[in-house]
């Protein structure tokens, strides 16, 4: 006898997973926010689950609506002398560099 099991991808998202996703997203969250997110994400993914009603084994994924190959452009510099522009919105002021916390000990 062959038993067919419907594969259900959605395992409910637990608190540990929420914290893992927050780590991957580089967004720190406290426990209270994590609990709220656990509830929200589970509701959203439960709703998303309905996609599994569809058999898509033979369907090609749609990656771009334009369905064109990317154009080539000439290998030319079009923006020159824009150092000031590039640094203008830097959160820590310095006219030559972007400043970040020390990375290498």
């Amino acid at each position, binding site marked *: 006898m062959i038993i067919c099991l419907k594969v259900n*991808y959605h395992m409910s*998202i637990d608190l540990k*997973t*929420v914290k893992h*996703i*927050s780590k*991957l*997203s*580089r*967004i*720190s*969250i406290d426990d209270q926010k994590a609990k709220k*997110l656990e509830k*929200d*994400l589970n*509701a*959203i993914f439960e*709703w*998303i*689950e*309905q*996609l*599994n009603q*569809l058999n*898509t084994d033979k*369907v*090609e*994924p*749609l*990656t*771009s*609506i*334009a369905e*064109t190959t*990317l*154009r080539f*452009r000439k290998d030319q510099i079009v923006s020159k002398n*824009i150092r000031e*522009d*590039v640094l*203008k*919105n*830097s*959160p*820590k002021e310095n006219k030559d560099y*972007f400043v*970040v*916390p*020390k*990375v290498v000990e």
Partner: protein
Amino acid sequence: MAHLIDLTLSELVKKIKSKEISSKEITSAYIDRSIKSKKLNTYVEETFEEAIKNSEKFDNNPSFEKKLSGIPLAVKDLFCTKNVKTTASSKILENFVPTYESTVTQNLWNEGAILLGKLNCDEFAMGSSNETSHFGNVISPIDDNLVPGGSSGGSASALAAKLTPATIGTDTGGSIRQPASFTGTVGLKPTYGSCSRYGIVAFASSLDQAGPMTRDVKDCALMLEVMSSFDTKDSTSINFKRPNYFSDLNKNIKGKKIGIPKEYRVDGMPSEIENLWEKGKNYLKDCGAEIIDISLPHTKYALPTYYIVAPAEASSNLARYDGVKYGFRADGENLIDMYEKTRSQGFGDEVKRRIMIGTYVLSSGYYDAYYLKAQKVRKLIKNDFDNVFNNVDAILTPSTPSSAFKIGDKTNDPVSMYLNDIFTVPVNLAGLPGISIPAGLDKNNYPLGLQVIGKPFDEQGILDIAFSMEEKINFKLKTNDWWIK
């Protein structure tokens, strides 16, 4: 000069060209009214002084051959404007001043338009009610405490309240058409690749399109004609011959075949919307169009597909906000700590939620189950449209499953908020043009809209259909200026 603000964009252009009125008169009239309308919270950045100067400059040396000569316009704060703060209504970009101009806004200025200011929206365009903005809720001029829709809520509100003669928005899943529908205005999302994405703060790059929001269909054609251009700075911009949407606009839609998709008759849709849809069909028949019942079988899968694809792309696009090169930065003990605190404090709850959904569906072990699956269903949704467009020229649907709701009504239930976009999202997934026009009122006197969906690059076709329906519908937006004391 109170009546100035009652003129449509195309009427204003005419009056400026015939020298009946000056740019300064119009600009001052809109600024005066905008100052009195702070309660609606539509502006996040005002450039009124600069606008007056620019209108004087225009009047002193006018050039009447342009399409928007001397016209003041406020735009959604998702478009980068050179030397004018651009925030995407997010704390993380609170002090961001671009050193470059978006192509779409540049096109407006090239045709003689003048910037009035930047308009509130949902944070990073993620929302359907303009309740996720860092700068607070936008109020609809239709009623106190009513949402204008979103994400282009500030644009819709400012337009309906006559704080700008026309405006521009962006539409990733309905962000132009839904707020247009909620506020009794016209909104068009062009075919993907019609308007350049260069300089627009990115949300979901395979779905984002800029488009016009206006008081009538004529204005919509005029704005689209100015906005749409081929642009090498956007790798997905499409080089096609763009018609003169405005001068080519015509009401002859005799013999056009209009599809009515049965799947858009959703459970729980108010009978008022059902009736309006019926009326729309009759108007089209009166104009000589043929009504054909069609099926778009994968419609119900569009929203869950969207809520995988859009957050996935957003999580990737928003990775750039790390506090290093621009934007808000929170101090941290080390680099990683700085990233995490910056993004935690800089983004609002809805944006964080979507980044996390996107990160999850792209993460190792889940990519195939969610992201690849969604891309495949997206293909099925596009195939649905391709199939019906063999038999029909355009599709008529309601714009939204309900009229505008009160502030706070849906903020605690993300899924019910997402359901607002049920009729607009499939159009983005398939990259098609769609227009929402005001079609009537519900029992509370809140506006309701009808949507016309077209074949790729057939903006002219849907504009013509909307133009002929508009005449029959004869909708007049009435607000009694209750927000002005």
